[in-house]
């Protein structure tokens, strides 16, 4: 039998051949700092942070997760800043004197708000006038990832008067795309001496814009001033007061609103959906169709503010009304809830064998259970999608009343893409994946996520506090 054990010298050669440099120390330190500031689990009941920051490391000016007595002093402590979220008022708070804009070649950047605390800076800026033809090309148009502004290049830095440069934290606070631009929020884990009142916003390039297609190396000076006592940075948050908020319970699912923030683009609603089950067993519970009935009886759809994937854990959701509701109380409702599970412990294998043909079907008939819900992988079928071979699996809930969705992967392969036959929850679904080229000899299938739909209607009401 051939001895294939490599020599130490050859292993060392391989090690050098695939060598990768270590991460930059400043990145390692930044991320360590971010992690150290994340809330300790299990989170206390009154964790409250802007929904778009859930799942990322929010540099907390504020946020308040473990702030004692936060509920009683809520209205006095917190305000909502578009692009940043909830901020705390403190004596040391400094803010932007006035928004500052710079326009080049028809594109404007406006530093909208800056909030400086003792050891943190949070900044929101907007970009407008961005034509769509400046954005990243698709692969069919020959787009290459390296030719597009991305990563740290699209994050702003702050230049102080003394020449020091503050690099923004690696994870943005959030943001969203607008019709001709975007807004973005960033944090900086740094303290700025009170003597530093004149800062400069610097941005190398605009997010997702092809390098060289639009002006780059933006530089916008702005001035900080001390926030006057009692100064309101943004709209006050209306606290979730149990006297005016009710909690809706149906089928073991609890729905509770925790804050309501009127904004120009609609009323933002912060809420939780919970079950009595151990929260460590699931990732999140998301609402189905969500809407509000305003004081005039008009039904208004609610839109998720946060881009979200089922892999993310979510404690508090942030939705906003699609249009501004009439002044007065609202009833907030949603229909159907989905419980999302990380299901990577559910794995099965099958061997298609030689000469597998397109459309050929294999009976699998494997039973699985997640959190008490039973499901069966009935069969696998060889498919081809855009020239890539793969498998489509038929999966059925064991109960006709339980609807499900699932994402499957072959985690042994990197060049594999999940495909979802019918993304809507159903009693029987088809879902699967394709490979870039040849299918492996043995197919090892892992459930990445499973979502179970609970049917029902949940509602609660909210009224603005008396003036």
């Amino acid at each position, binding site marked *: 039998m051939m001895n294939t054990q490599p020599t130490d010298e050859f292993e060392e050669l391989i090690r*050098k051949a695939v060598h990768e440099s270590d991460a930059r120390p400043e990145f390692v330190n930044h*991320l360590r700092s971010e992690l150290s500031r994340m809330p300790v689990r299990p989170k206390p009941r009154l964790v409250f942070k802007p929904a778009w920051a859930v799942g990322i490391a929010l540099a907390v000016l504020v946020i308040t997760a473990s702030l004692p007595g936060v509920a009683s002093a809520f209205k006095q402590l917190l305000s909502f800043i578009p692009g940043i979220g909830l901020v705390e008022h403190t004596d040391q708070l400094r803010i932007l004197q006035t928004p500052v804009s710079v326009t080049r070649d028809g594109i404007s950047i406006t530093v909208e708000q800056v909030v400086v605390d003792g050891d943190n800076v949070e900044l929101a800026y907007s970009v407008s006038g961005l034509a769509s033809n400046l954005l990243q090309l698709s692969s069919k148009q020959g787009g290459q990832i390296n030719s597009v502004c991305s990563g740290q290049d699209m994050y702003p830095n702050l230049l102080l008067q003394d020449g020091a440069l503050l690099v923004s934290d690696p994870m943005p606070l959030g943001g969203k795309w607008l019709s001709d631009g975007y807004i973005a929020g960033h944090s900086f884990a740094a303290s700025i001496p009170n003597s530093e009142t004149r800062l400069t916003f610097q941005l190398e390039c605009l997010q997702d814009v092809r390098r060289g297609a639009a002006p780059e190396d933006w530089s916008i000076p702005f001035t900080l001033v001390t926030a006057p006592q009692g100064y309101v940075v943004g709209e006050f948050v209306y606290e979730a007061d149990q006297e005016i908020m009710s909690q809706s319970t149906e089928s073991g699912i609890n729905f509770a609103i925790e804050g309501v923030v009127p904004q120009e683009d609609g009323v933002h609603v912060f809420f939780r959906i919970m079950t009595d089950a151990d929260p460590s067993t699931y990732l999140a519970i998301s609402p189905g169709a969500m809407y509000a009935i305003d004081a005039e009886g008009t039904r208004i759809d609610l839109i998720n503010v946060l881009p979200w994937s089922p892999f993310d854990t979510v404690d508090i959701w942030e939705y906003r009304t699609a249009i501004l509701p009439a002044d007065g109380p609202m009833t907030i409702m949603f229909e159907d809830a989905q419980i999302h599970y990380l299901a990577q412990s559910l794995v099965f294998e099958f061997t298609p064998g030689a000469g597998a043909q397109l459309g050929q079907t294999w009976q699998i008939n494997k039973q699985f259970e997640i959190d008490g819900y039973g499901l069966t992988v009935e069969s696998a079928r060889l498919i081809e999608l855009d020239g890539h071979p793969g498998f489509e699996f038929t999966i059925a809930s064991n109960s006709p009343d339980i609807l499900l969705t699932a994402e499957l*992967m072959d985690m042994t392969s990197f060049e594999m893409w999940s495909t979802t036959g019918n993304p809507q929850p159903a009693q029987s679904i088809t879902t699967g994946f394709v490979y870039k080229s040849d299918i492996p000899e043995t197919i090892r299938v892992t459930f990445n996520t499973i979502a179970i739909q609970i049917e029902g209607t949940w509602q609660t009401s909210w009224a603005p506090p008396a003036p």
Partner: protein
Amino acid sequence: MEGITTQMQPNAVRRNLSALANEAKANPSAFAELYNYYVQPVYRYLRSHVHTIHEAEDLTSQTFIAAYENLPRYRERGHFSAWLFRIARSKLMDHYRKSVSDTSLDAVENRAGSDDALDLISQRDEIKNLTALVQRLDDHEQDLIRLRYVADLSFVEIAEILGKREDAVKKSLYRLLAVLRSQME
């Protein structure tokens, strides 16, 4: 928190790290120790798969944040490193899926050819040739090499990540190295 080590450690140490992961559920400072130990191997592994430093940093951030947030779900049934690298691979696959419509597959595959590490060793023909040979391997084979020689994982850990037996992983890798060696001769 300083003094990050990237040396391979005995399995006993790695087992203790898995115990540390359980401790970290209640004590966040224990997670800092895990972070110090694994941040560089995770980063190097992710870096070996993507185009840019920024992508590798983003994915490393996502990996550790997801690990921290999902720590209550970690059960000490195996190595913490295997659990962590499964998250990293999951993030990597998410990244590929999101990029697939915007980035050509060929560009992803050919990334290693432009790596600055190659420039550093370009004078050494033997290593250069070996690098080229590794790049010709299929993705599974390249990944096996990366898990072993970039992430510095043990065979037991790699076996847990790939869902294979330890001896099967060892045999696969050794056969692969034997083929590479024969191609160099």
